[in-house]
């Protein structure tokens, strides 16, 4: 099986040498590895894009999870943007709102597309549908955004981890934010190298983030972590597009993320035993949702 890239360095070099977009390298690799046609692969990604848009629109209308822990925040943020009082910039806040919308739908057991996981599914579509309003991409460019995100995520998944249980939240929302940052850069017309720097800048600021879901539910703090992941991705992309570079090479940042995940205590890796899950309020919420038996476990 031929692999076109094993790490980000090879991915960027190949894109530069062949004068291609990173998304194109990912499409070519998928054709090689799956032995499927370009049309089939594009069609599947278009379907994923459709699922993302539908999830996001559902969330923007307002949803509530079964437990009532999450839901409705995407609407609050949209209303705030409409009021014109936003300080951080409307595109950034729109990305935050749309990331939250997606994860609120996920928490409510709605249909979503994992990017790279369900718990981190808000960041990539949230940023995509926010920058869309500024960059006016074609549908093809929107699909390419997902392939570029996927190319970087592919490296992380194979060289480190995208699982909160194995690597903490840095492996989930951290990976998602960095993937989105790289894709924003490509859509905005940046170079493959700038995508790589955006990825590194984003992930560096997610290192060490633990996975500590209250009651083990993908709700608190997951939904708000997606909000901040989207904000992180937007700022990292802008930094890279401004010409700011990462001093630590991208693949070394991924290596650092992997080792941090390895040494992270199990209590902070999706076991609902540490961090926010173990706070008095976190435990009280767990008891309220599942009853006393589960409280003793936490």
């Amino acid at each position, binding site marked *: 099986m031929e*692999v076109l890239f094993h790490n980000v360095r090879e991915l960027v070099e190949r894109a530069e040498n062949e004068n291609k977009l990173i998304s194109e390298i990912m499409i070519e*690799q*998928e054709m090689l*590895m*799956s032995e499927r046609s370009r049309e089939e*692969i594009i069609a*599947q*990604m278009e379907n*994923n894009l459709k*699922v993302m848009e539908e999830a996001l629109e559902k969330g923007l209308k307002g949803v509530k999870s079964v437990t009532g822990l999450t839901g409705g925040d995407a609407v609050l943020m949209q209303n705030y943007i409409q009021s014109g009082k936003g300080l951080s910039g409307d595109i950034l806040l729109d990305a935050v709102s749309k990331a939250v919308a997606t994860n609120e*739908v*996920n*928490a*409510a*057991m*709605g*249909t*979503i*597309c*994992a*990017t*790279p*996981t*369900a*718990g981190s*599914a808000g960041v*990539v579509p949230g940023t995509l549908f926010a920058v869309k309003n500024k960059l006016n991409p074609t549908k093809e460019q929107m699909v390419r955004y*997902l*392939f570029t*995100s*996927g*190319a970087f*995520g*592919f490296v992380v*998944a*194979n060289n480190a*981890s*995208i*699982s*909160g*249980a*194995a690597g903490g939240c840095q*492996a989930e929302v951290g990976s998602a934010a960095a*993937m989105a940052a790289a894709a924003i850069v490509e859509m905005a017309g940046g170079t493959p190298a700038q995508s790589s720097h955006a990825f590194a800048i984003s992930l560096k600021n997610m290192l060490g983030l633990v996975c500590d*879901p209250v*009651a*083990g*539910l*993908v*709700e608190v703090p997951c939904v708000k972590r997606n909000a901040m992941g989207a904000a992180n991705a937007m700022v990292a992309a802008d930094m890279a597009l401004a010409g700011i570079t990462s001093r630590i090479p991208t693949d070394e940042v991924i290596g650092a993320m992997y080792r941090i995940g390895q040494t992270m205590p*199990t209590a902070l*890796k*999706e*076991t*609902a*035993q540490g961090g926010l899950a173990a706070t008095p309020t976190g435990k009280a919420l767990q008891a309220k*949702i*599942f009853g006393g038996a*589960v409280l003793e*476990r936490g």
Partner: protein
Amino acid sequence: MKYTSVFDIIGPVMIGPSSSHTAGAARIGRVARDLFGRLPKWAKIHLYGSFAETYKGHGTDVAIIGGLLDYETYDERIKTAFQDAKNAGLEFEFIPETDHTEHPNTARIVIGDDETEMSIVGISIGGGTIEITELNGFPLRLSGGMPAILVVHNDRAGCIANVAKCLAEYDINIGHMEVSRKERGNMALMVIEIDQNIDQSIMEEIELLPNITKVTRIKK
């Protein structure tokens, strides 16, 4: 490589809330169903690590039962899988375990009916991607992402060649193959990943070869 497709990263399309604990769990259940070949009458599901700690919140339990009912990760019926299982005559039990396992998201699914029973161990490695690491006590590595056949046979010379010859006659290419056994000269297991789905008739033909005990398949 653990992940071979961009759709492992941008995907799967799934019912929330967790790709590893919901979608991955559903996939492990569905592979178990596929290998068993029909709906089992009962299921005992042992959960380890993060699966054991958080399965209720993540819907891991309904997802595994959904998988045993042959539901895909995006099938809305996952939400009602418990009731659907009862209606279909599948009894089930979840057993959270405290033993340490190599991977934090591990499930051992033991299923059966009046004729036979089967045990598999699956791990959910992130983003909805899974591996099957054990079948009826045989260690193996199977992604479930490729069509495969699993052949239980007596550990005798010529068995592997016979199976390979049969597949070759039908122009079926072997992508990856592993053989494992518990002890020499006893029962052994061939795991053969192939490039296309295989017909029932070919499986039956393999089953008739000398020293072959049982043939099961995973479709894609």
